[in-house]
């Protein structure tokens, strides 16, 4: 019995919230280190959502709607910055948007910290807003739905698989975009690995490309502070693996 099979039944109970005490702690600890079981847990939760759908019942009474809207009206919230999303390329557009938001937030925070002793709160806010606007302007060709997306390669060369990883070590945030990825054999998936400066490769998400060969991984669970020497991709079973089991098909070091 493999390590993951050993946890399989308990993961189902965990997804249902039926595990208590030590058993629950044990699974929590395992999940913290096992991408494959995290993926399986997500799938099991998706399964439980299906179960929820087997039920049907009367609509909530009309008063419930009014009660909610009254409560909402009593709790107005300040308007937040919103990045709109209208992606004809679906997940890839979403991933690009997420990348922009992550980097914008990071820049905003760092910027705020540096200027804290120099500028007033209002001037910091104004500066941050300007920077966000600038980032949006720069990112517009990536996130706007009407933008064309073209990869240039040497003339007459066939399209090559490409991947771009955007990684913020101090936040443990990672956005990965890929294109021209070759189709996978059945039951297989690509797995992204963060190669730390020392130690074993760390699972950084399992993905399958769409029909056009595009794929993305947005913010897989990663510990903060891990310095990445490189990123790599291997082909693994679709549930993912805790360690690479095949040679890397793509590798890239920091630019």
């Amino acid at each position, binding site marked *: 019995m493999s390590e993951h099979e050993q946890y*399989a*039944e*308990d*993961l*189902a*109970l965990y*997804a*249902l*919230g*039926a*595990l*208590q005490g030590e058993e629950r702690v044990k699974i929590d600890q395992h999940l913290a280190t096992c991408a494959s079981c995290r*993926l399986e*847990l*997500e*799938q*099991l*939760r*998706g*399964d*439980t*959502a*299906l*179960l*929820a*759908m*087997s*039920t*049907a*019942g*009367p*609509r*909530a*009474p009309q008063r*419930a*709607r009014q*009660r*909610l*809207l009254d*409560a*909402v*009206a009593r*709790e*107005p*919230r*300040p*308007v*937040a910055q*919103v990045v*709109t*999303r209208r992606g004809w390329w679906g997940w890839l557009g*979403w991933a690009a948007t*997420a990348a922009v938001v992550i980097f914008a937030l990071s820049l905003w925070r760092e910027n705020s910290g540096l200027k804290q002793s120099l500028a007033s709160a209002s001037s910091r806010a104004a500066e941050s807003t300007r920077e966000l606007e600038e980032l949006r302007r720069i990112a517009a060709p990536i996130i706007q739905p009407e933008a064309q997306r073209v990869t240039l390669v040497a003339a007459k060369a066939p399209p090559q698989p490409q991947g771009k990883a955007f990684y913020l070590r101090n936040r443990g945030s990672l956005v990965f975009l890929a294109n021209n990825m070759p189709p996978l054999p059945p039951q297989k998936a690509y797995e992204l690995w963060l190669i730390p400066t020392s130690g074993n490769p760390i699972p950084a998400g399992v993905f399958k490309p769409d029909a056009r060969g595009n794929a993305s991984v*947005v*913010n897989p669970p990663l510990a903060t502070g891990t310095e990445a020497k490189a990123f790599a991709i291997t082909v693994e079973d679709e549930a993912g693996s805790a360690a690479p089991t095949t040679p890397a098909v793509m590798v890239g070091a920091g630019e």
Partner: protein
Amino acid sequence: MVAGLKAGDQGAMAELYDRYSSVVHAVALRVLGDTGAAEDVLQEIFLQLWRNPSLFDASRGSLGSWLAVITRNRAIDSLRKRRPETDIEDVVLSVAPDLAGEAERARVAEKVRGVMGTMTPVQRSALEMAYWEGMSHSEIADKTGEPLGTVKTRIRAGLIVLRKAFQT
């Protein structure tokens, strides 16, 4: 709509309610069996999302399915009069049907019921006790007189049967 919530748009909240309240209410009512208690959970779920729209993002799955799962979890906590067991922030699910439209919901519900109908009565019963009554595997084993390991296996196998039915 979630972007609208983030922007503090009350109209977006109304739209979200109109689209998903039937799912949330049906799930809460099935667990709690009481319209008042189900309505309370319904209010709680939507208000929580209004107060903190960042609880949901597209990486957590489809909005309808995510709402169904967190509603079930909250209703079970309420049924068993216990503190919330699972942080909403921790609930991530693989992409499942969005269930925004009545027709889509009815189609999925019919298919799920069909799949449940193919399970043996003991398997279906174990799964339903765990899901709708929030019973632990030990409680189910006590109630049915079956070995603990058998109950565990039945619950997982039942979920996998459902998954496979929607993969084909």
